[in-house]
């Protein structure tokens, strides 16, 4: 049972500003139903003064996601665009009297929706956080976005990065990368740089390494989640596999494939690609 504050409970049971503004000046769509929470924020802006005159939300998610969404609308109505952009996820959590640590990602989602809605209003197509390299495949999070949240909230542990962004909360394979990112940010040294290229392998060495890795590391992981993978062929640098069980039907099949590719690149050779037979 989560320990929610009275404010969270109140805004969850009786949220303010539910709905969608027709002909909104800005729309922010973040999250997805697959990930377990999603928020659509619409805002009305008075052009002359750049003031947010109205805001409404629609949220799929848990109590703290709904309360955070309601909080962001309360916080931004009446503010200018510039004032609104100064709001942090801590401000949202603070407005709610605090959130359980594990639920901080709900406040981060609220803040992201706000950024996206304002970017949409300004006619910017892509938010800054969408650029960069993907760190967490499960939730599609880039290093740029993680850096932003880590710095803004002074996060020191990978566990907190998961609490605030969900990164690493799925399959967990990116947790070492998150650790490296944290070290890099707080020590000021570049660690998450290109890995040193591995020495060239013979084809037979390569195939046996791939076989070994799939058998000993990748299959047990997938099997425990109800999936399976089989190595079909290695054609030059292209590794052909077939996904079985859950994996083959899963909406995350692409992600699974990318994870396998990442693992093979890391452990065997950087030039490998993975495709489905």
């Amino acid at each position, binding site marked *: 049972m*989560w320990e929610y504050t009275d404010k969270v409970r109140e805004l*969850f*049971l009786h*949220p303010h500003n*539910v709905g969608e503004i027709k002909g909104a000046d800005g729309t922010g*769509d973040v999250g997805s*139903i*697959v990930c*377990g*929470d*999603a*928020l*659509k924020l619409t805002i009305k802006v008075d052009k002359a003064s750049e003031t947010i005159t109205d805001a409404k939300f*629609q*949220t*799929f*998610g*848990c*109590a703290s*996601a*709904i309360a955070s969404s309601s909080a962001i609308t309360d916080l931004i109505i009446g503010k200018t665009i510039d004032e609104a952009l100064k709001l942090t996820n801590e401000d949202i959590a603070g407005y709610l009297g605090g959130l359980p640590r*594990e639920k901080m990602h709900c406040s981060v989602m609220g803040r992201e929706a706000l950024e996206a809605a304002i970017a949409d209003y300004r006619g910017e197509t892509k938010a800054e956080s969408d650029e960069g390299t993907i760190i967490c495949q499960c939730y599609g999070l880039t290093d740029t976005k993680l850096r932003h949240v880590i710095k803004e909230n002074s996060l020191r542990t990978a566990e907190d990065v*998961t609490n605030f962004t*969900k990164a690493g*909360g*799925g399959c967990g394979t990116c947790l070492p990368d998150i650790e490296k990112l944290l070290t890099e940010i707080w020590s000021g040294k570049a660690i998450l740089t290109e890995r040193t290229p591995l020495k060239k392998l013979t084809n037979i060495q390569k195939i046996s390494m791939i076989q070994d890795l799939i058998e000993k590391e990748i299959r*047990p992981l997938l*099997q*425990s*989640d*109800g999936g399976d993978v089989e190595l079909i062929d290695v054609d030059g640098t292209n590794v052909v596999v077939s996904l079985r*069980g*859950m994996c083959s*039907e*899963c*909406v*995350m099949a692409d992600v699974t494939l990318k994870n396998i590719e990442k693992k093979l690149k890391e452990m065997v050779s950087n030039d490998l690609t993975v495709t489905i037979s």
Partner: protein
Amino acid sequence: MNVVYLDNNASTRVADEVREEMMPYFSELYGNPSSMHLFGGQVHRRIETAREKAASLINAEPDEIVFTSCGTESDNTALMSALQTMPDKKHLITTRVEHPAIHSFCKLMYGKGYRITFLPVDKQGRLKFGELETAITDETAIVSVMYANNESGVIFPIEKIAEFVNSKGVLFHTDAVQAAGKLAIDVKKMPIDMASLSGHKMHAPKGVGALYIKRGTRFSPLLTGGHQEAGRRAGTENVASIIAFGKACEIAALNISAENYRVKTLRDKLENGLLYSCPGAQVNGDIEHRLPNTSNISFEFVEGEAILLRLNEYNICASSGSACSSGSLEPSHVLRAMGVPFTSIHGSIRFSLSRYTTDSEIDFVLEKMPLIINELREMSPYT
């Protein structure tokens, strides 16, 4: 306001008769059952009576029952015993939908070099039996398949599985924690070598369980120390809870058919009512072969934790397979193994009834649930 408790697969209320039976062991009957004097010795005799009652629930012999501290300890003991007594066999077979007590143990053993096969289930949560036939080898130390699933309520064909595993000369364990007391289990009718039971799932208190070990099964204890439980589980007995466990088994055995018929009728009323009043709802799991008290329903476009907390406002208790309510970010491994789409898992709610559930409680849930679902859907960006 009264609590409407529909989370009996998580834990159950201690029956009044059970509580009364255990009370003397907190006051006048405090002797150690291992003592030589009569004061302690009389307690030992009561434990043996409890053992007889526990045995008769599953038609076992009393000396085939070992009392433990919980279902998890029973599960861990069974698997560890198999590995200890057959050190040359490095393969375990289980399913993808087991309780963490089995799942985590297997993952731990995987890290220690064992090979683990997690048998898949189909979309209805039914075990793919053919996969067991191909997975079993001379290397297999034990096959562990749950009797009934805690989340979906799906019952596995344990007799067929046990007979097949037995024909291959491999040990068979079943986690019968959810099935015991709800289904008639007869260990004389099928070659089950070990079975785990838990007290608090059948109206005994938390902190007591049992492990059935068929006569002649090679066994190695998990806890070593004193000679309690015939040397199979060291540690001074949790006397009051063991007495309670015995009483709970006795009551369960008496009521199994009548109560379950009544509970099943209420469950069906709840399920059909919800499917009727909430569009976009569907039942997860094989509705033919299912525990009589369990209903797992997915409500599209709404998130489980939000539903639970709204239910909580009416003092209605249930549980969910959604990621948010699990404490981790991962949704239910059982529903994922069944191939339930993520979108539906996030909105899954499990109702589990007991013999204390009343008709008016079901009416109350049927009245409140559509309101909750509608309100949350009005908030959802997907509707």
